[in-house]
């Protein structure tokens, strides 16, 4: 009895671990812009356990995101105080050889006044890192203007370009107006690029070469 039950249990554990590993791999690759949605669909269809494993990974990931600030504060309280983290230059700085003047701005919700508004402006050759109260981060490209309004800082207006790393809050979705378009919070990381009257939204992370 024991000898049959033992290996059986072991086998089950190994199986589910293997599936969890696969789910992790799919989840990891999802950040890429050229993610293989068809392959992912086929994998999900192959076994209902795949879907459940992926749910588990996605929920775990979401829980980490939810607690990002608290975790950050506990893990690096001194690092936070002494050396504010500055994102590396993003792609609009990559090739231009622009001497980037980096500034760190913390946007805090104002307690007085019913319609708090914050304006962030960058000059040519200058970028700005904006941290919102909910942990969302925005990198404003040179020569751009971002207006953040609304009590939850979820109403934005952008002239120019920016990279968004947005905390996804289903109950308070983010709206970004840019060049006459309205872009809804589409999850996590994306770029909005405006030039010559066109607005482009690039979803997912930007693959910076080099």
């Amino acid at each position, binding site marked *: 009895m024991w000898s049959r039950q033992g290996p059986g249990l072991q086998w089950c554990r190994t199986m589910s671990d293997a599936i969890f590993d696969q789910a992790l791999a799919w989840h990891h690759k999802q950040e890429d812009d050229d993610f293989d949605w068809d392959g*992912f*669909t086929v994998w999900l269809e192959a076994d209902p356990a795949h*879907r459940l494993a992926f749910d588990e990974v996605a929920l775990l990931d979401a829980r980490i995101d939810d607690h990002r600030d608290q975790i950050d504060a*506990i893990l690096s309280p001194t690092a936070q105080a002494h050396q504010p983290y500055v*994102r590396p230059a993003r792609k609009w700085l990559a090739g231009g050889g622009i001497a980037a003047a980096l500034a760190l701005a913390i946007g805090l919700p104002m307690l007085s006044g019913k319609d708090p508004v914050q304006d962030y402006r960058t000059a040519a050759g200058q970028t700005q890192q904006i941290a919102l109260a909910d942990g969302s981060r925005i990198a404003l490209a040179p020569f751009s203007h971002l207006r953040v309004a609304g009590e939850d800082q979820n109403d934005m207006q952008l002239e120019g370009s920016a990279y968004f790393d947005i905390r996804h809050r289903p109950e308070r979705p983010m709206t970004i107006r840019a060049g006459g378009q309205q872009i809804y919070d*589409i999850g996590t990381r994306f770029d909005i690029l405006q030039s010559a009257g066109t607005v482009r939204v690039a979803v997912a992370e930007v693959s910076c070469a080099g």
Partner: protein
Amino acid sequence: MADMQGPQGLEQIYTEHRAGLLRFLTARTGSAAEAEDIVQEVWLRLRGGGIGPVDNGRAYLYRIAQNLVLDRLRARRRREQRDRAWTQLEMGASDHDEEARDTRANAQEALEEREEVARLTSAIANLPEGARRAFQLHKIDGLSHGEVAERLGISRSGVEKHMAVAMKYLRRALTD
């Protein structure tokens, strides 16, 4: 190319990929009915958003859908937590005042949240060095996989391995 896609472009993409999206969502949620609901929601978002040209329209559609699935999952999980908190309170409920119980359910949830943060944080602190650094840079500091690889001087698949180690650690920390 991508710049030519107007809002109409997105509608076209939606029409073109609706069947595939439905198939994906059925596989993703395990329910054809839920998949239909979510496809409708995707459509409403596209219509309501008046979204401009998008680089990779299909990926954009799937990503919206995937986020909607996650929203539902999280809502379900929250409901379950809430129910648990309520049930626990009911056990020793001397107050029949709904409001008081609600307040206590909130307190209970806040407590659970704090415990979750504590578990996550200590698990992260105890990760193997490489996994801890990759995790910190990616999940806490918000760097992309490529940026993490560059920062640590390792390959992207190296980052993936570190992240897998970290996620498995954290999963165990939350379930143990």
